[in-house]
C-alpha cells in the first residue's frame, strides 16, 4: 500500500490539490471545527501539479454539492475524493457553477442585495481567473473582492 502524507480515514471525504495558501480558508468554509469525527489538515505537501498543495480529510462526512461550489471559488484546482472503507470510491474536480446563489455576497455596499432580505446572486462571467457579476447591481468582482457569506 502506498504511503499517505496525511494518515488514512476509513470513511469520509478528502479534498486534495488545494492551493496551499487557501487551505485554512477552505477548512473554515467547510466549518470543520464543528465536525464530530477526525479531521486532518495538511499544508505545504509536495504536489506534482501545484508544487505545494494543501489537503483536508474529513472523517465520516460526504461533502455536498453546495459546499463544493464554495470551495471552487478559492481552490479552483481542488479534487474531492469520497472514501469508503479506506478506498477512493468517487473522485471529482470541483467546478465553479455558472450562477452562484447564496454563497458569495455582493461587495457593493449600495447594492439592493445588501439591504433587502434577498439571496445574493452572482453570474460567473469568467471561471479562471474568476470574475463574478452581481445579478442586481452589475458590479464585477475579481477573486480579491469575493466575500463569502
Amino acid at each position, binding site marked *: 500500500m502506498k504511503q499517505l502524507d496525511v494518515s488514512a480515514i476509513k470513511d469520509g471525504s478528502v479534498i486534495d490539490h488545494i492551493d496551499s495558501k487557501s487551505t485554512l480558508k477552505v477548512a473554515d468554509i467547510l466549518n470543520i471545527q464543528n465536525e464530530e469525527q477526525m479531521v486532518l489538515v495538511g499544508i505545504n505537501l509536495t504536489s506534482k501539479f501545484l508544487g505545494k498543495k494543501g489537503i483536508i480529510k474529513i472523517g465520516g462526512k460526504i461533502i455536498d454539492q453546495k459546499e463544493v461550489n464554495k470551495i471552487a471559488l478559492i481552490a479552483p484546482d481542488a479534487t474531492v475524493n469520497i472514501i469508503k472503507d479506506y478506498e477512493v470510491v468517487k473522485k471529482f474536480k470541483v467546478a465553479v457553477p455558472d450562477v452562484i446563489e447564496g454563497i458569495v455576497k455582493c461587495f457593493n455596499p*449600495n447594492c439592493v442585495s445588501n439591504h433587502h432580505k434577498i439571496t445574493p446572486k452572482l453570474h460567473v462571467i469568467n471561471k479562471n481567473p474568476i470574475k463574478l457579476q452581481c445579478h442586481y447591481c452589475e*458590479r464585477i468582482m475579481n477573486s480579491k473582492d469575493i466575500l463569502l457569506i
Partner: protein
Amino acid sequence: MTGFKQKDIISIRHFNKEELLSILDLAQRMEQTDSADLLKGKVLASLFFEPSTRTRLSFESAMKRLGGMVIGFAESGSTSASKGESLSDSVRIIEGYCDIIVLRHYLEGSAQLASDIVNIPVINAGDGANQHPTQTFLDLYTIQKTKGTLEGLTVGFLGDLKYGRTVHSLAYALAYFGAEMFFISPPSLRMPRDCIDELRDRKVKCHESESLMGISKRLDVIYCTRIQKERFADPVEYEKVRGVYRLSKTLLEEMGIKEDLKILHPLPRVDEMDDSLDTTNYAVYFQQARNGLPMRKAILAAVLGAIV
C-alpha cells in the same frame, strides 16, 4: 418592434445594436405621427423613491400624450416605504394597480429586483450609480439626430467620469458603433478601470487625459457631465477642478474644434458649461432634454405592445 414587447428595460447591457437602432427609429416616428390614443386605458405607475425632474416628468408626459394614465409618487416620504415596507412588497402590491412600472430607486440593482418579482414590465429610471438606460437611448437619439449617424464617431467624455452612470452606459452603447473615445477628467474622477477594460475588450480605442488641450480638434461630440462638489473632501480641490472643466465658446474656439462639433450634457448643469455656448450650433443639450419625450413615448408604446 420585436424584442421590446413586455420586455423589462433594466440595463443597457441587455440590448444589442439592432434593438438600439430600432428604438431610435421608433422615437423618430413618434415625432412625426399622431399617436394620441395609442395607450388609451393603460396605467403607468411612476415610482420615484429618489427625486428627479426631467426623467419623471418626461415619462409622465409621454404616457399622457399617448392617451394613458399615470399613478405614483415623486418622493418616498409620503409612501409606505417610509413606514418600512420593503421594495419587494411595494412593487408586488402596486403591480395589481397598473400595466407598467417606471422605477427610480437609490439602491443599485433595485430595478432588477423589482423585475424579478413582478410580471408586468419594469423600466429602470435610475438605480443609484448603476444604470439609467432610457437616458442612454435618448443620448444616442440626440447624437444620431444631430450628427446624422452613430457610426465611427470620435467622442470626448468630460467631467465626472467616475460616478457618472450616464457616461458608463453611453460609452458601452457607442462601442457597438465603432466610436473612438477620449475620457477627460481630473485624476480623482477618472473612468473606472473595469469600464475601460470592458471597452478595450470590445475593441474600442480609448484614451485618457486631464485636459481637452490637443484633443479638441478631433472630437465630433463632447459629452459633458456635472462635477459634484460633494465628491471632494477638500473644497480647494473642487475649486481647482471646476475652473479647468468649464467650457465656454471662447475657450473652445481658441483651442480649436470641428465646426460641426456637438455638445451634450444630461443636465442639470452647474457651471461646467458657460451660457455663452447656449446659442451656438454646438450646444444640443436642450434639444437632448426635449428628446426625452419622443424617446419615452417610443419605449412605452413598444413595451406595452402598441406598436408592431
